[in-house]
C-alpha cells in the first residue's frame, strides 16, 4: 500500500510539472509581467518607474527560465519559473500580486468555508440522486420512468444561474425563509446561511445526477447476478439496494470521488451569489482583479487535488471491489 502510494505520487509529479509548464507559458509568455504590473497598479499616474518597482517587489524582474547573469545552479533558480512555478510543488503559493497576502494562508483559511457548502451538498445530492435514481430504475420502462427522464433532461437543460436567481427570489425574498446572502462561521448560525445554497445546488444537480445513476443502475440490473439474486427469491428492494447498489458503487465512486477535490475548490457561482467567502469566491475575486498569482495557485491546487482524487479513486476501488488489489 505504502509503496503503491509512493509510486502513484511519483507518477503524479511529471503531470504536475506539465501543468506547471503549461501555466507558465500561458501566464508569462502570452501575458508578460509588465502587463500584469500595469493591470494591478492604481488607476492614476502609473509611471514606468512604478512598474519596474512593482516587478522588483514581486520578483518579476528576473529572467523567465534561465538567468545568464548568475552562475549555475542559480542560472536556474533565480528565474521566474523556479521562484514562481517550481515553488508551487512545495505548496509555497507565494503572495498575491494585488494585496500581497500569503496565498497559502488564505487558501487554508477559506477551505472550511467552501467545505461548509460543498460537503453537505455533496452528501445530500449523492444520497438523494441515488435514491431517486433507484426509484426511477425500479419503475424502469414505465411511464414514471419516461416522465422522470424527461424531467431530468429538462432540469439539466436549465442553467444553474436560473436556479440561483430563482431560488434566491423565492426563498429569501418571497418566503423569507433564509437570508438573501451572507455567512457566519460559527456553527448554529451557519445553518441558516447554508440552507439556500445547499437546496439550490441540490436542485441543480438532481437532473444530471439521477439520469446518470439511473443508467448505471439499469446496466447493473441487467447483469446475471441480479437474475441470480431474484432466483433466490429476494425482493426487488433487496436486489436493488443490496446487490445492484453495491456493484453500482464502482462507477459511482469513479464519478463521485473525482469531484471531491472540487469540494475544496468550492463553487464559483454559489459562493459569489451568496457571499460565502470560500475558495470559489477567492477565485472569482482573483479573476476580477486579475490577480495572476492567485489564479496560478488555484489552478495548481485544482490539478493537485484532481490527481489526488484519481489516487483516491483507485484506493476506493480496492475497498469497493474485492477483485481489485493494489500491488
Amino acid at each position, binding site marked *: 500500500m505504502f509503496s503503491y502510494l509512493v509510486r502513484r505520487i511519483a507518477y503524479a509529479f511529471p503531470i504536475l510539472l506539465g501543468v506547471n509548464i503549461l501555466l507558465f507559458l500561458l501566464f508569462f509568455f502570452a501575458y508578460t509581467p509588465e502587463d500584469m504590473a*500595469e493591470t494591478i497598479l492604481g488607476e492614476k499616474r502609473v509611471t514606468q518607474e512604478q512598474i519596474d518597482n512593482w516587478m522588483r517587489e514581486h520578483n518579476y524582474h528576473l529572467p523567465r527560465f534561465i538567468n545568464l547573469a548568475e552562475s549555475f545552479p542559480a542560472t536556474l533558480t533565480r528565474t521566474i519559473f523556479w*521562484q514562481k512555478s517550481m515553488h508551487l510543488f512545495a505548496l509555497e503559493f507565494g503572495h498575491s500580486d494585488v494585496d500581497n497576502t500569503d496565498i497559502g494562508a488564505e487558501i487554508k483559511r477559506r477551505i472550511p468555508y467552501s467545505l461548509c457548502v460543498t460537503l453537505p451538498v455533496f452528501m445530500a445530492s449523492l444520497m438523494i440522486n441515488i435514491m431517486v435514481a433507484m426509484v426511477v430504475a425500479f419503475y424502469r420502462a414505465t411511464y414514471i420512468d419516461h416522465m422522470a427522464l424527461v424531467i431530468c433532461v429538462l432540469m439539466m437543460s436549465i442553467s444553474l444561474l436560473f436556479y440561483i436567481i430563482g431560488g434566491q427570489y423565492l426563498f429569501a425574498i*418571497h418566503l423569507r425563509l433564509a437570508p438573501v446572502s451572507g455567512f457566519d462561521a460559527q456553527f448554529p448560525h451557519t445553518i441558516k446561511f447554508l440552507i439556500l445554497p445547499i437546496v439550490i445546488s441540490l436542485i441543480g444537480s438532481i437532473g444530471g445526477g439521477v439520469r446518470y445513476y439511473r443508467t448505471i443502475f439499469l446496466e447493473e440490473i441487467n447483469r446475471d447476478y441480479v437474475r441470480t439474486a431474484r432466483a433466490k427469491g429476494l425482493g426487488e428492494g433487496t436486489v436493488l439496494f443490496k446487490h445492484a447498489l453495491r456493484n453500482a458503487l464502482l462507477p459511482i465512486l469513479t464519478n463521485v470521488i473525482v469531484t471531491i477535490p472540487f469540494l475544496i475548490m468550492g463553487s464559483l457561482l454559489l459562493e459569489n451569489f451568496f457571499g460565502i467567502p470560500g475558495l470559489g469566491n477567492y477565485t472569482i475575486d482573483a479573476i476580477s482583479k486579475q490577480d495572476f498569482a492567485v489564479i496560478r495557485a488555484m489552478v495548481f491546487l485544482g490539478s493537485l487535488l484532481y490527481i489526488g482524487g484519481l489516487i483516491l479513486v483507485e484506493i476506493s476501488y480496492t475497498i469497493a471491489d474485492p477483485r481489485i488489489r493494489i500491488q
Partner: protein
Amino acid sequence: MQLKATGILHAALPALVLLITASCSNNPYRPGETAESTYFSTFATPPTKLDPTSAYYSHEGAIIDQIYEPPFTYHYLKRPYELIPLTATAIPPPVYLDADGAVLPETDATTERVKRVQYTINLRPDIRYQEHPCFALTPTGDSLYADAAASDIAPYDSPSRFPTQSSRPLMARDYALQIRRLADPRLASPIFSTIARYIEGMTELQEAYTTMLAEARDARRDAGGLTYNQEQDEKANPLVIDYMAPDFPGCVVLDDLTYRITLTTKYPQILYWMCMHFFGPVPQEAIDFYAIPAVAAAQFSLNRCPVGTGPYFLDTFRPNELIVLSQNPNYHPDFYPTDGAPGDEAAGLLADAGQRLPFIKQQVYRMEKEAIPSWNKFLQGYVDASGIASDVFDQAIEMAAGSDPTLSPAMDAKGMRLLTDIRTMLWWTAFNFKDDVVGGLAPERCKLRQAITIALDYNEYLDVFANGRGLAAQGPIPPGIYGYRAGETGTNPYTDTWDSRRAKHVRLPIEKAKQLMVEAGYPEGRTADGQPLTLHLDHAAGLDPQFRARLQWMQRGLDRIGIRLKERGTDLSRFRSKRNSGEWQISSSGWLADYPDPENFFFLFYGPNGKVDHGGPNTCNYASQEFDDLFQKLETMVNGPERMALIDQAMRVIQRDAPAVWQFYPVSFSLVHQWYGNVKPHQMTYNVMRYRRVAPATRVELQAAWNQPRWKVVAVALLVLVGICLPGSIRVYRRERSGA
C-alpha cells in the same frame, strides 16, 4: 450493517429537519446582534490597501479615514465645504519666502517671487493612539513582541486581540514619518508624483530611499544563497529602512507637537491634500512592530491592520467577508458641531449639537458583491443605509412632476428617508488628440467633436440608465466645486441650450449636429470615399454587465449623424498601454474630486499633463496654448471674482475645443432607515460616521415585523408533493401483494 445505518438515519433525519426548520429566518445576523448600538452596512469590493500611503479607492478610504486623522478635515454640515482643524490647533496660514528666505507679505506674494511656502502645523496635545500591541514596549524601548514565535501570534486574528497593548500620545514626528513614507518606492503612493512637484526635496528623498533599498537587497541576496527568493524573504522578514535618515527639507519636525511643511511654489490646495489620510500620522513603533518576522508571518501589516488616533479602530478585518470598526476608547474629545448649513436645524441635524462623539459603538460591514442582495437586505431592514442602484429606482422613488424626488408610498410607510446629493464627480467621453480622425485643434475637428456631443443626449442617457439621477454636464466642473455655473449662464453654447420650461440644459437639435458634420467634412457622416465615418470606442469594460447597453445607446445616438461606432475591448492592462501610447480613439473616463477646487478638474486637460508626451493624467492629450495659459494663471489663485473670470474663459475654450463629450454629474441618492440618524451626505471625507447614531430598539422591532417567514406556502407545496407521490406508492404496494 444495513439496519444500523438506517437506524442512525431514522434518528438523525428528524433532528436535522428540526434544526434546519428552527434556523429558517432571513435574518443574516445572530440573535440580539441588531439590538446594540451598531451600524450595519455592506461593501462590494474588498479593500486591499489600508496603508495610508497607498490607499486610494473610496472603499479603502471609507475605512481608514475613520482611523488615521490628518491634521485638518472638512466641516460635517456646512456647504460649501469648509476646512476645520482636526488634530491641529488651527488652520495655518501660508508663509511665503522669497529666494533669499525672507518672508514676503501676502500682497507681494506673486507666483514669480515666491520661492518657498511654509505651513507650520501645531498639534493638539490631548490626542492618543488607539490601544495597540506596537506600543507595548520593554523598558529599553524594544517591542514586547520582538522575539515572539509564530505560535505566540497564531491564536490572534487581529493585532487588536493581542494580550498586551498600550498607547502613546500623538507627536509631530508621526506626521513627518508618514510624509516621508509617501516617497517609499515600494509603497507606490498614487499621489507621490503630484505632491513631489510641490513639496521640497520629495523627489530626492525617493532617490535616497531607492538607493537604500537596493543596497539592503543586494546584501540580503548575497547572504541568502542560491535559492534566495526575494519576495518570500521580504514577506517573512520585512525590509525596514530608516525613513528618517535622509535629509528632507520638505517636512521638518520643530518640536513634539509642531512640524513644518515647505513647498517650492504657491499651492494653496496643499491644505486639501492635508485633509486626506495620505497626510495622517504613522508611528514608527507600528513600522517596527510589523517588521517582526512572527508578526509578518501572521499576515499582519500596515496594509491590513492600521494604527491610528481616530474615533474608530479596525477591530476585525476579513476583507472578503467582514470588516468591523469599533469605537476607540482613547479617542480625543470631539463634539457634534453646533452650527450647520441653512436647513440643517429643521432637518434635525443639530439635535445632538455639542454632544461628545462618537455615538455609534461599532460599525459592521459585510461583503456583498451583488447589488441586489444588498438592496434586498436594506428593504428587509438588515442594512441601515443603502445607495439606490438605478434598477430599483422606480420601486423606491417617485418623481413628482417638477418637484424634488420623494419616496414611494411603500418606502414612506416603512419610515425610510431619502438623501440626495450631487456628487463632485464628472463623467466624460474622451477624444484622443493624437488620433488622426477625432483629434487635433483644427476647427473642423472641433466641429466633429461638437457634433458628436450633440448626438449623444445625456439627458436621455440619464433617463435610460440612471433614472434621471444626475445632471447633464456642460463642462468639466461639477456643482459644488468653485467655478461651476448653474442655470442659463452655465450653458455650453456650442452644443446645448437652456430650456427654461424644463429648467435644464438640452442639446441643440440634431440638425445642428448634422450641419456641423457638413462643416467638419463629413456630410451625412460620410467620408470622402462615401463610406460612413467609423469611429472606435476603446474600453476595458469586460466585467461590466451594462457596458453592452451603453455601447448600443451610443451607437444609436451617433447613427443619427451617420457615424458608425465600433467597440474595441481589451483587458485593463492593454487598455492602459493603448492609452499610454495614444493608440486609441474614443474612451470613457470619470473623475472624482480629490478636493473641492476647479484645478482638480482642469488639470485633467492641461497640456503639460498629457498622457502620451508627459505621462500625466491628461488622457485626451489635449494641448491648447490658450487653455494652458489660463490654467497656469488660475491654478494657484485664491477664489474670487478674478479667478471666476479666468475659469469662465477657460471653460469657454474647452467647450469650444471639446476634447471630450461632457457626460453628466451623477447625483447620489441614498436611503436610510428611520433608526439611523444625523445623516448628511459628505463628498470629501469618510470620517463622518462619528457624527451618526442608530436607535437599536426601533430597529429590532421593525426588523421582526417586516420579516415573518411565510410557512404556509411551504406547507402547501409539501402537501401537493405528497399528493403526487402517494397514489403511485399505494399502487406499487397493492401490485406487490395482489399479483397482476
